């Protein structure tokens, strides 16, 4: 049976049927897999927060990023994270729902001038209180985000960065240990100003021995991603400044 595929009516019907079929396949698939995907995303966030705090399974070889395994992360998370705070309109309250806050959405609310909430995770690592705050910004192609763990003197105890679509081998290397490890020990304070930490080219410190310069060495070929990381840190530090002041005052 030959069909006349050139007729307009056939074309329209074909297009309609195709859209419905493809749409339903994708919709069924997405809703069917949603619980699994949500759970994976929750584990990932817990792994990332713990990683920033220094709770991870990194070896001494300084090469690969090793998270707490997925099946243990939930237990470890409740062990290490002692308190979750929500900052809303300058008021700080203890609330375990802080974990569910999506910083991206809150920043969008803030942009619209609406009230927004900021989460803080207070962890305990070897008897020291660490304050983990989330970050969100943009790299070269798409979103970048991460967590930064600070102690009471505003010294960085660890960071974790991730990205949606930075170039493999260039910008994507922000999630490599040799980049992230450089942030540890840097201070976000310059004298008494909240300066953040910049990703700098040619700071004559490729081994990052100088820890008081608010700078880490940039990645070759990833200038815009690096600038995005600097901007993201500055933005989060600025957002959380009132809260960070209260920690320092203690």
């Amino acid at each position: 049976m030959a069909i006349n595929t050139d007729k307009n009516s056939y074309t329209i019907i074909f297009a309609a049927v195709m859209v419905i079929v493809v749409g339903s396949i994708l919709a069924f698939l997405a809703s069917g897999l949603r619980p699994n995907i949500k759970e994976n995303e929750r584990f990932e966030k817990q792994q990332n927060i713990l990683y920033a705090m220094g709770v991870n399974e990194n070896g001494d070889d300084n090469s690969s990023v090793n998270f707490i395994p997925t099946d243990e992360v939930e237990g470890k998370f409740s062990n290490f994270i002692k308190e979750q705070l929500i900052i809303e309109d300058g008021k700080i309250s203890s609330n375990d729902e802080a974990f569910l806050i999506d910083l991206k959405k809150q920043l969008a609310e803030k942009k619209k001038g609406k009230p927004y909430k900021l989460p803080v995770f207070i962890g305990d690592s070897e008897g020291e209180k660490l304050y983990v705050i989330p970050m969100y910004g943009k790299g070269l192609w798409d979103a970048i985000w991460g967590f930064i763990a600070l102690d009471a003197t505003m010294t960085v105890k660890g960071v974790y960065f991730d990205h949606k679509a930075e170039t493999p081998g260039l910008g994507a290397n922000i999630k490599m240990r040799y980049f992230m490890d450089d942030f540890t020990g840097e201070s976000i304070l310059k004298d008494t100003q909240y300066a953040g930490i910049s990703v700098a080219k040619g700071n004559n410190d490729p081994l990052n021995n100088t820890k008081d310069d608010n700078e880490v060495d940039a990645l070759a070929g990833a200038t815009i991603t690096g600038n995005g990381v600097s901007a993201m840190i500055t933005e989060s530090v600025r957002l959380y400044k009132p809260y960070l002041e209260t920690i320092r005052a203690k």
Partner: protein
Amino acid sequence: MALLSKKDTSLILDPLADNNPITIQVLGICSALAITAELKASLVMAISVVFVLGAGNVVISLMRNIIPSKIRIIVQLIVVATLVIIVDQVLKAFAYELSKTLAVFVGLIITNCIIMGRFEAFALANGPWKSFLDGIGNSLGYGVILIIVGFFRELFGSGTLFGIPVLGDAIAKTGLYATGYENNGFMIIPPAALIVVGIIIWVQRSRNPALIEEN
């Protein structure tokens, strides 16, 4: 009876060399530039394209008699996008780590001109089995070039292969670096990929003069 006839074999083998999608047809250059800074990314992209082009060619070939010619490009786009999204979602649910690695490739696969090119040039006119072989052949031809480019760019650009240092430690100056050798920063930026692809084309054509076009 052999599994593959002589014609079938040439469908797979031709794109590997004398009808290579990158070096002869000059398709898929964009992704070849974008992700060949390291070998691992090249390999992952190559494997993904083998899957997508193999499956996509079969789907398009099965539908070839009912696709209205006026909207065939859109239909092709929908087929490849659907395939890629299904794979992405399934990986996210059951192999989350792997899906993180692949996330960046999803967009690149959909817009890869080799995929649309093979749908248009081959699958619309041939049966599913031949289309499948053509898809596998072309994606392998694409993958081979990606891996060659990735090998040279990572080796000379970063001194590593699959992320493992092979030339010594660049910062501590051990191995080859002790003799004053430096990594070539130019190799990790995209223009270097064009030069490497150019050299491959040059080598290929000088070995096989039949490939040189007459002016």
